[in-house]
């Protein structure tokens, strides 16, 4: 399967990737501006990027608590998912009967759309952060677990033999051999989990509650405050992009191959 070609694909190195993204973004925004002004689109339909950026700055104090709420839920849920998914994967790896019992359920949780549970959770727990957090964790941790376990199982047997020839303990084997070898695969799952976490959080906000960027977008569009609505959209996209780039950065540090 792909090795080096994959990394080059998304821009050489951190700076290269970021530069390309920024340039592209600039191009898209410029086009947007031209179209809006050229076709004389009214602001309540499609504001210009300039107006949106203006709103992002001017209305920041109003939007900030919602940005915070969304980010907090996503990041907290994400970290819980990663911790839970990884530790469970380690347990399953060393304990075959446990693995045989729960792996089908985790596979299932990866496949079914768990956001369908959100209205139910909100009925039981109200519109607060608890329901949203649970939704995020439920949607994210299975994929971390699945990928981690698959990566553990795909460790080069020869590398494991080295550990066996030294009669390393399970802990030593996991720490010195399995985890480092599995890192790329683990990060694949982690990045997917990040995406799912944000989707789950925003969906929960849209289903119910008044806090969070998703809820705000609905509010703003109801009152036809389009620049503010777009500002929230941009903030969400920005958060998603930063989140993803940070994970890629961490991955580059941890995966030294």
């Amino acid at each position, binding site marked *: 399967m792909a090795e080096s070609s994959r990394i080059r694909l998304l821009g050489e190195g951190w700076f290269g990737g970021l530069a390309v993204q920024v340039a*592209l973004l600039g191009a*898209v925004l410029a086009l947007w501006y031209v179209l809006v002004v050229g076709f004389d689109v009214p602001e309540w339909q499609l504001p210009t990027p300039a107006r949106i950026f203006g709103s992002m700055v001017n209305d920041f104090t109003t939007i900030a608590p919602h940005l915070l709420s969304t980010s907090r839920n996503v990041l907290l849920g994400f970290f819980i998912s990663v911790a839970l998914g990884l530790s469970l994967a380690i347990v399953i790896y060393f304990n075959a009967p446990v693995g045989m019992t729960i792996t089908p359920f985790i596979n299932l949780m990866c496949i079914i*759309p768990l956001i369908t549970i959100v209205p139910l959770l909100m009925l039981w727990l109200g519109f607060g952060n608890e329901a949203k957090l649970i939704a995020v964790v439920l949607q994210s941790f299975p994929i971390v677990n699945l990928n981690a376990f698959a990566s553990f199982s795909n460790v080069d047997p020869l590398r494991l033999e080295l550990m066996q020839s030294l009669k390393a303990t399970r802990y030593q084997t996991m720490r010195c051999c399995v985890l480092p070898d599995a890192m790329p695969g683990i990060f694949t799952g982690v990045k*997917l989990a990040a995406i799912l976490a944000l*989707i789950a959080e925003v969906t929960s906000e*849209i289903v119910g509650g008044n806090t969070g960027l998703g809820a705000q977008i609905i509010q703003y569009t109801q009152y036809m405050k389009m620049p503010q609505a777009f500002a929230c959209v941009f903030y969400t996209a920005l958060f998603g*992009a930063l989140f993803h780039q940070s994970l890629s950065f961490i991955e580059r540090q941890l995966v030294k191959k």
Partner: protein
Amino acid sequence: MSKNDFSIQEVFGGGLTEVAPVSELRVDGKKDEKLKKVLYPSILLAVLIVLWEVCVLAFGMPQTVLPSPFSVARALAVNFKSLILPELIFTLEIIAAGYTISVLAGFLLAALCSQSRLLARSAAPLAVMFMVTPTIILIPIFMVFLGFSPIVRIIVVVLQCVPIIMLNTLTGFMSIEPQQREMLAAHGCSRRQILTKFTIFNAMPQIFTGLKIGCVISTIAALGADFAMGKEGLGYRIKISSSMVAIDMVFATIIVAALVGIVMFEIVSFIERRVIVWKRGG
């Protein structure tokens, strides 16, 4: 060791793999293993359902908080035709349309991008941007222009799904090792021949990984769109049942939605098994 961005190791959908690290444990007692792999989870499932029923009875849970398994089954049977089926068909249509468009667009874009490194370098970050943004947030805005049209839902599904399929397919296409390329050139293959036959074959596992994730993502996006737009779809049925506190219906519809996801995934997995006949050994 595969390094696949935005993709899952091919074991996703391949079921359980051997747990014991020692290579030789893999080879003993295969028949026993197969039975256990079915038996253990089934036992857990049975235990969970029994526990559910017991909890409801023992704690005297009102049907409005936690319905018993029986009442869920009954709600499903009674209301399927009238309440669930029309929404099911609607959501299925959205998912089918969105997924198909995503697959075609994804393949097309990937094929285009694989022709030129520069194009790939430019398009990929754009795709990543769409992938990391939950497109459901665009729904209120699209609704300003397009109202309650189902097109909004399809657009949202497509926008969420295309990047993943495209990136995985592109990774697959670009994954020919230089030695393989040399070998083919040495045998006198023209560039076109290399591209079509070998590249596609080589890319198959990665392509299917993308297709499988795309399944999951499009289902999630479609149901999320149901939540956001209301009026139709399985997500709408869930939302409205929960606002009426008809929890047995909520459970029933969730199960139906889950089945949609499962069936779709299994179809793709089935096709994968037919196409990729050279499955790697564990």
